[in-house]
Every structure is written in structure tokens, then in C-alpha cells.
């Protein structure tokens, strides 16, 4: 079975926090190269890893991961403010 592509905001969140891939990798218990694969959306994490990432950033899993292309956070924030 071919897995669906999962979209995520890991790169945006990591840059926003000002941490390197190596630092994030140490926090979530993976190799730093795996963080690169996750950010490029070339690898779908397991449920356990997805929860570890969401716990680290302090956001719900559905905010970080999606099965559809995610809007930029600034766009979502602008929409919320204008509503």
C-alpha cells in the first residue's frame, strides 16, 4: 500500500523557535537527517514520533500535520483576525 503524503509545519515552527535541526533531533529522539526528511515531507512519521513533535512544540498534532497542503501560518492568522 502506497502511503499518502503528509504535509507539516515542522520547518516553520523550528525556524520560529530559532533551533537547529540537530537540536530538534535531540529533543524528539531521532537523527538530524530524519528532521531534514520530515521537513521536506519526504518521510511520514509514526504516530509516536508525530506526538513527540507535537509535545515538543506544544501544538496539537492536527495543527502540525495535515493530509492536505497547509496554508502559511501568517495567512491563517490574518484570516482569523479579519473574522
Amino acid at each position, binding site marked *: 500500500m502506497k502511503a499518502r503524503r503528509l504535509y507539516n509545519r515542522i520547518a516553520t515552527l523550528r525556524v520560529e523557535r530559532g533551533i*537547529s535541526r540537530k537540536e530538534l533531533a535531540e529533543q524528539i529522539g531521532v*537523527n538530524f*537527517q*530524519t528532521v*531534514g526528511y520530515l521537513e521536506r515531507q519526504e518521510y511520514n512519521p*509514526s504516530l509516536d*514520533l508525530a506526538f513527540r513533535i507535537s509535545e515538543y512544540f506544544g501544538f496539537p498534532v492536527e495543527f502540525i500535520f495535515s493530509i492536505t497542503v497547509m496554508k502559511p501560518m501568517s495567512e491563517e492568522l490574518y484570516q482569523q483576525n479579519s473574522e
Partner: protein
Amino acid sequence: MTDRRVQVTVNYAALLLMNIAFYFVYKGRNASHVIDAVGLFSIVVVGVTFRSVHWKTGIWKLTHARSKDLDERELSLTHWALSVSYGWFAVICLVIMLAMSLIGRMNICPQYTISIPLVGSLIYLAHTLPGSMIAWKGEVLPEDTE
């Protein structure tokens, strides 16, 4: 074909060339310093391409690491590489056994048995095939740092 795929191809082509050269050395009929030189040159090429494909990229460490030292992506990658290379290695061994049997039956070189270079090549192949699968796929990028 990417640079790494070219290196993998050259690595195994040199290994094959080394075995052919040492076969003729063993056979004795066409043995010459040229064939000796080709055999030794092939070993050097195997060594150089092994260093660039397996050693410098960290693929050797990845395929020889203990499971508990790998994360889930690396585990899934090495599992895939090991299962595919197991099939390829089995086919290669069976082809060699068939070739050996034909060499004996057709009286090409009846005294020829499995030589040390051939056994050495098979050991090398068993250790490097999973890594070559990963290199061929284009995984593990050493430049993928910050």
C-alpha cells in the same frame, strides 16, 4: 544517472573485473603481468569507490549499526535495503554456482574451484549490497546538515 549511482556501478564493475583477471591468473594459460596489473588495479578502484560510496557518506555505519541505535526512518530504510539485497545476493550466488558447474562440466578449467578472490568478493558483496541499495536510491545525504 547520478554521481553516486555511477560510483556504485564502477565499484561492482571493478569487482567483476578483478575476479575475471584472477580467474585467468588461476587458469594460467593467459597469465601475464598485464592480467596481474589489471587485477591489482581493480582492487584499488574497488577501494577508492568503496571509500566514497560507503565510508565517507556514513552508509557503512548505517547498515552495520545496532537496531537500538537507529531511529524509525533509518530502521525502515535499512530493513528495506537488507530485504532487497538478500534477494539479489541469493540470485548472484546461484548464478555463480551455475557458472562454476558449467565451467567444470564443459571442461573449460576442470581444476578451477571457488577461489579466495571469489569468496572475498562474496563477503564484500554481502556487506556492501544493502549500502549500495541505499546509495542507489539516493538516501543519506552527508551534506544534509544545518
